[in-house]
């Protein structure tokens, strides 16, 4: 099975646990080498967070379970990179 090397997720989460705690827990998962989380929208009770995860073999099940356990929900999977190395999306006429 191909190894997932990068995941970009759009999530909605409660304010607590905050993104520092979430990043810490996600970065400790097996196969994950780095995590980047940024908040792009804040509401009274929740916030929207873009989560970027890179690693050698990311387990989507573990990632989604961790996010849900920490009071978040995945809205969409915005980018996935799998295979032997990380590549960015190719530039096409459409963008």
């Amino acid at each position: 099975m191909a190894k997932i090397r990068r995941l970009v997720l759009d999530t909605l989460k409660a304010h607590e646990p905050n993104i520092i705690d979430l990043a810490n827990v996600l970065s400790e998962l097996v196969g994950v080498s780095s995590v980047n989380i940024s908040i792009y929208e804040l509401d009274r009770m929740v916030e929207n967070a873009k989560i970027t995860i890179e690693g050698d073999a990311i387990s989507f099940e573990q990632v989604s379970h961790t996010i849900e356990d920490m009071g978040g929900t995945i809205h969409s999977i915005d980018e996935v990179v799998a295979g032997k190395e990380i590549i960015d999306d190719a530039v096409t006429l459409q963008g």
Partner: protein
Amino acid sequence: MRSLLEAVSYFREYDKLANISEIARRYFAMNAFDGVLTIIGVLMGNFVAGVSDARIVLSTGLATCVAMGVSGLWGAYLTESAERKRDLDELSKVTLTDMTNTRIGRASRAAIVIVAVVDGLSPLIAALIVLLPFFVAGSTDDLSWAYYTALGLALVTLFGLGLFLGHISKGRMIIYGLKTVLAGVVSIAISFFLGVEG
């Protein structure tokens, strides 16, 4: 040792998520204060009625302690359960996810239990401290020293609670201590005059 460290780590996490220590601290101060003032009422009732049997003072005092403990435990459990369930349901509704089995849900359940225990134990322990002289009084004829010592202990406990509140507010601890002692003195004075008048 490892499980203890894990428990501490869980508590820290849950505390951050559910604000446990702040709420428990508030309940502790409020209910210990209630406990001391209630037991002052019981003591003054016995004192002005001329009760000179330590067993009677202890049985009424302990019954009051237990009632306060049960009341605190039950009351806090039901109130906290209702409040936290509402918050969790609201969060579940907003995120369209069931929060019951998440860290937030677990922290919420831990908070209910911890706060209920603190709420139940704080008036119980505070009142038991005040009753201590009657445990050692045994069957002595003159109980007046036990009454005075118990009331003194009550005021000291109130002063301690005041210091604790002053420490939390980072205000002047002595002023807080004197304010809580004043409540005890007022309570003792009113009970005394009511008893004398009656």
